[in-house]
């Protein structure tokens, strides 16, 4: 099987945008075509990662709309919804389309428009992914994070400050990302002094509500070499699910989808955790960075907080820089775009195009989490030239 390459990437400014979802998708899609040097009519498959444009905006059919808007007709189109991991699922679908031989040029665009809704409304749209017995309790995704964080801190005797350090680190990284929603440093005291949202987690333990879009261009490696000498390959990718009902998991601090998808991606790539030079993890809530570091084998269970305390995940001085983009925490979390934007960051790091965020990296990983670990995609990328 020929390796699948990425030859172009783009993302819009994340944050509160005036444009609606169709315009955001077109903005990232057109920029990605330009970045890759690919004509729209060359695109054979077009995937749109999007969780809830119908619920947020009343706009469905976004994949067909995008093909028309960017001149990609008659490309095959499909919308990919896997809740918050729609972006990662889009990478998987786009990879499959190329790896199977069905497409020689696949454009993936992820996007979401959310900020026109109140926080309560947006929270409810996201919480609609829960089981009926969960939904009727009024549970939100942040509430799951609060309960899990309490359990983690009590069980592993971890200090509350360690979670705040995740937020502070990612905000610091986001300062150097011109596409980030918040280019602003936030210190640990500010995190610990912010309002409680889901005890013991506070406002700055959570990602914001965001508008934005991101895109990647995928093709067979042999086709990539017709366009460029420098590209990135997807060397490993896998997806997995965990229970729909969160409390049915045997261990609240283990996300089975992270473990399973990570093992699959490592096996496919022939890599292991020690080979990873940079990682983008789904820090929708600070506690998730700990759970993914442990689930992906970067730390033993209950010990990720110690690595954060030691500076292991710092961008400029750590052994494994985590969330160099600023993460969802600082960059923002436009649901369907987030997994694609993780891929954009790893692509730019491996291509040496990350500017002030650049780290020394040849192998990168991104982990995109849907629901509260309900669906997960892990992708490993390497410099392909």
């Amino acid at each position, binding site marked *: 099987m020929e390796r699948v390459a990425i030859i172009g990437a783009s993302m819009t400014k994340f944050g509160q945008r005036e444009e609606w979802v169709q315009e955001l998708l077109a903005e990232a899609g057109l920029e990605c075509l330009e970045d890759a040097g690919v004509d729209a009519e060359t695109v054979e498959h077009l995937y749109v990662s999007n969780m809830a444009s119908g619920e947020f905006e009343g706009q469905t059919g976004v994949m067909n709309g995008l093909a028309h808007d960017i001149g990609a007709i008659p490309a095959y189109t499909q919308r990919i919804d896997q809740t918050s991991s729609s972006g990662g699922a889009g990478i998987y679908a786009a990879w499959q389309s190329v790896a199977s031989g069905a497409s020689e040029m696949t454009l993936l665009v992820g996007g979401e428009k959310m900020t026109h809704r109140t926080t309560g409304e947006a929270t409810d*749209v996201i919480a609609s992914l829960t*089981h009926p017995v*969960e939904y009727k*309790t*009024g549970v939100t995704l942040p509430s799951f994070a609060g309960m899990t964080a309490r359990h983690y801190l009590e069980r592993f005797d971890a200090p509350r400050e360690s979670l705040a350090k995740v937020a502070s680190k990612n905000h610091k990284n986001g300062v150097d990302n011109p596409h980030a929603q918040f280019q602003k440093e936030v210190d640990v005291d500010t995190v610990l002094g912010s309002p409680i949202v*889901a*005890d013991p987690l506070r406002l700055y333990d959570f990602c914001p509500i965001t508008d934005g879009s991101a895109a990647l261009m995928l093709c067979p490696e042999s086709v990539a070499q017709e366009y460029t000498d420098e590209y990135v390959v997807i060397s490993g990718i896998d997806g997995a699910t965990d229970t729909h009902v969160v*409390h049915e998991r045997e261990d609240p601090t283990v996300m089975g989808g992270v473990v399973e998808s990570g093992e699959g991606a490592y096996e496919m790539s022939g890599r292991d955790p020690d080979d990873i030079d940079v990682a983008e993890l789904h820090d929708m809530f600070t506690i998730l960075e700990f759970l993914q570091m442990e689930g992906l084998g970067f730390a033993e269970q209950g010990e990720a907080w110690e690595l954060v305390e030691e500076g292991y995940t710092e961008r400029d001085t750590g052994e494994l820089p985590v969330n160099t983009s600023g993460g969802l925490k600082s960059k923002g979390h436009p649901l369907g775009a987030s997994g694609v934007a993780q891929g954009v960051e790893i692509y730019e790091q491996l291509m040496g195009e990350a500017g002030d965020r650049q780290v020394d990296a040849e192998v990168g990983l991104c982990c995109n989490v849907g629901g509260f670990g309900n669906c997960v995609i892990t992708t490993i990328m390497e410099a392909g030239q």
Partner: protein
Amino acid sequence: MTMEATRYDDGTISYPGHPRSRNGAEPVETIDLSEHTAEVVTWTTSTATPPGVREPNHLAIVEFDVGEVAETSEGDAVDDGEDVETSVRALVQLVDDEAETGDEVEPVYTEELRELGAGIREPDSQGWDGYRFEPV
């Protein structure tokens, strides 16, 4: 009103019940959790709640010990050794913020856990009554 967990042919229990267990086994009986007390595994108080949900909203994952031995669909005792479960967890609302991790709590019936029709979900698609829990 009951709060039904399901025991399966493989000895596992879940709340809520599913057509098959996580191992693919068929249901053999239900267990009414509202007749049991439970222990708080972890909890939170949510201050940013969706439309129709009380604010603050006190939530917990609790664990019920339902120790009795069940029968399989063939009438045999479920005795698959370590696979036989005697506890089951549930996500519940707490009455207030008085419960802590490790506390024993008991159910109190409530007609409406959240205001039906206020959120995105179709009111007729599910039940809205249930139990809140408070320390014994």
